[in-house]
């Protein structure tokens, strides 16, 4: 490379795009973030967005209500396709949650400063995604009021769950994941709740935030134990997040169905989860920073880094697809070979090609600096990846189940209106929760931003 102009992506240039906009003090970051919750009037746009999302959530409630009245016959599932949208959507949502934990735990352990302004809403996204995911296994049982059978409790019938089944592992993995994500999120919130308590002007807000802050006063003794607990939680959440999608992949990999019974599933599911999760973080972050003018806190550096993580995990996913394909052919197992041919030429082949387009081909644009710094492209890209990852789960579930060993057991699967209503309804629930969250809780960690101010001011000295 010739001397003179440094390349666009050189370290010199990157240093110019800091993780925090210039000129911020402890008070200014506190003011800016807490004012979104405390003093800023609720905009018309918020009400419109919330209204749409809440209506879709209403659709979900109706769909679930009808399901409970009529049973799972209202869905498109049949024999042999007993797993339809419910499992596709469950895996999709759970995967989306993974990026939140990755950002809050793994990037914390790796001491990545750019995590600071995105970890709070990414964790909230995790919680809401897990909530959406949790609905599906519950309702797909057909008799959700019997779901407690899956938990170990001393029943009068003397029955116990089958602990050798991946479906029970799933119950433990997902409920632990939900609980630990909630704990992590809440522990991170405590100092900020104290800030909101101290800055609230009305009695009601003071009482509500005060109760939630539990009397936090930021004493050195508090911080001492707090930091220790936070670090430990990060260390515990890291193996947990890797285990959750591993266990989810066991739901498939432990079965002998062609296309499912492979050892590459756990790592490639985890990579796919982080891939889709980062896409969802971008989908949320880009409108959020625009709507609340948070460009100083969620800078281009953040978006650029997230795009890079997306590209990297996307390549791991592509590698997974390739090896799935290669191992099926290499194994010489005629059922596996047949399944690969079905993916390319079978009735659901368009889904497979769309999946390759969304998940492997389009994200290659992220190699280019200009694309990573174009907010509109990034936003569209994040949507494309979300669609692609949903298609991946559809391909895995539906193609394998419609084409297993015996031609007499082959079938077709077509989702019904109620399948779509439930799925779109959970998206509505997710967006509803995000809207409520940005309105009542600080979407960026105020205490950690103050810490970042202290660190960056030290560096500038």
């Amino acid at each position, binding site marked *: 490379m010739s001397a003179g102009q440094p390349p666009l992506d050189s370290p010199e240039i990157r240093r110019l795009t800091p993780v925090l906009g210039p000129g911020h003090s*402890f008070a200014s970051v506190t003011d800016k973030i807490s004012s979104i919750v405390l003093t800023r009037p609720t905009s018309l746009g918020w009400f419109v967005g919330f209204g749409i999302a809440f209506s879709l959530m209403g659709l979900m409630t109706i769909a679930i209500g009808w399901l409970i009245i009529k049973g799972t016959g209202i869905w498109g599932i049949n024999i042999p396709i007993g797993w339809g949208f419910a499992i596709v959507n469950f895996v999709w949502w759970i995967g989306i949650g993974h990026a939140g934990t990755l950002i809050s735990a793994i990037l914390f352990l790796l001491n990545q400063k750019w995590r600071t302004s995105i970890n709070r809403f990414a964790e909230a996204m995790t919680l809401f995604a897990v909530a959406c995911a949790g609905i599906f296994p519950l309702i797909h049982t057909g008799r959700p009021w019997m779901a407690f059978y899956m938990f170990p409790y001393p029943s009068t019938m003397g029955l116990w769950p089958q602990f050798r089944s991946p479906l029970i592992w799933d119950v433990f993995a997902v409920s632990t994941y939900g609980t*630990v994500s909630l704990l992590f999120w809440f522990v991170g919130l405590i100092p900020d709740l104290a800030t909101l*308590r*101290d*800055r609230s002007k009305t009695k009601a807000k003071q009482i509500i935030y005060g109760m939630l802050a539990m009397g936090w006063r930021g004493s*050195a003794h508090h911080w001492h134990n707090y930091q*220790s607990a936070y670090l430990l939680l990060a260390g515990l959440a890291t193996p947990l997040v890797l285990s959750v999608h591993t266990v989810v992949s066991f739901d498939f990999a432990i079965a002998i169905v062609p296309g499912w019974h492979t050892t590459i599933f756990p790592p490639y599911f985890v990579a796919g989860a982080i891939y889709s999760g980062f896409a969802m973080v971008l989908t949320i972050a880009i409108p959020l920073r625009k709507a609340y003018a948070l460009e100083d806190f969620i800078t281009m550096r953040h978006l650029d880094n997230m795009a890079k993580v997306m590209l990297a995990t996307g390549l791991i996913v592509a590698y997974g697809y390739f090896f799935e394909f290669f191992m099926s052919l290499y194994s010489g197992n005629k059922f596996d070979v047949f399944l690969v041919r079905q993916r390319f030429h079978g009735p659901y082949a368009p889904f497979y090609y769309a999946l390759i387009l969304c998940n492997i081909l389009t994200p290659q644009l992220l190699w280019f600096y200009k694309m990573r710094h174009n907010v509109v492209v990034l936003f569209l890209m994040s949507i494309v990846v979300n669609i692609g990852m949903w298609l991946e789960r559809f391909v895995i579930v539906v193609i394998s189940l419609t084409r297993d060993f015996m031609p007499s057991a082959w079938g077709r699967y077509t989702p019904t209106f109620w399948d779509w209503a439930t799925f779109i309804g959970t998206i509505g629930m997710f967006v509803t929760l995000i809207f409520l969250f940005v309105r009542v809780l600080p979407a960026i960690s105020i205490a950690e931003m103050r*810490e970042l101010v202290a660190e960056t001011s030290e560096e500038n000295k």
Partner: protein
Amino acid sequence: MEHHSHIYGVMGEFGTPEQLIHAARKVRESGYRHVDAYAPFPVEGLSEALRLHRSWVPLITLLGGLAGGLGGFGLQYWAAAITYPLNIGGRPLNSWPAFIPVTFELTILGASLSAVLGMLALNRLPQPHHPVFNVPRFTHASTDRFFICIQARDKKFHLAETARFLQGLDAHHVSEVSDD
């Protein structure tokens, strides 16, 4: 030494984390024991300056994790091998590899719950009221101000002298903290 039953302590306010650390070190060096500092974010080096002993949270977390893991495995063993044995083609009842995922998840769950509950218990939270909240300027402790409070129960505590001592450390707004 004098005793004020209605006084919790004396509090000094500082503008920067550096001043806080400096003051905390001086307060400890001059022999005060019952001291606490307040900051809007974890200030690096503050625990060392106040000579806080090591946190108990890691030990509590370890114990919680062990309890979760052993309890989790024990639960599965008891359910699958003792109280509800299913003979499936003569396979071993204690099929421990199949019990690993749940054991692992419950280890994490036990450790995380005890880390958080242990942290809250060690910090004596929830505690809705505390005397330091009586200081009007203390609301800034959660924004951009730093405080040191020397408590009245300290043997060396003397209302006027301690206040003067804090002023000598460049604290502004030295105020007494009432107990009620």
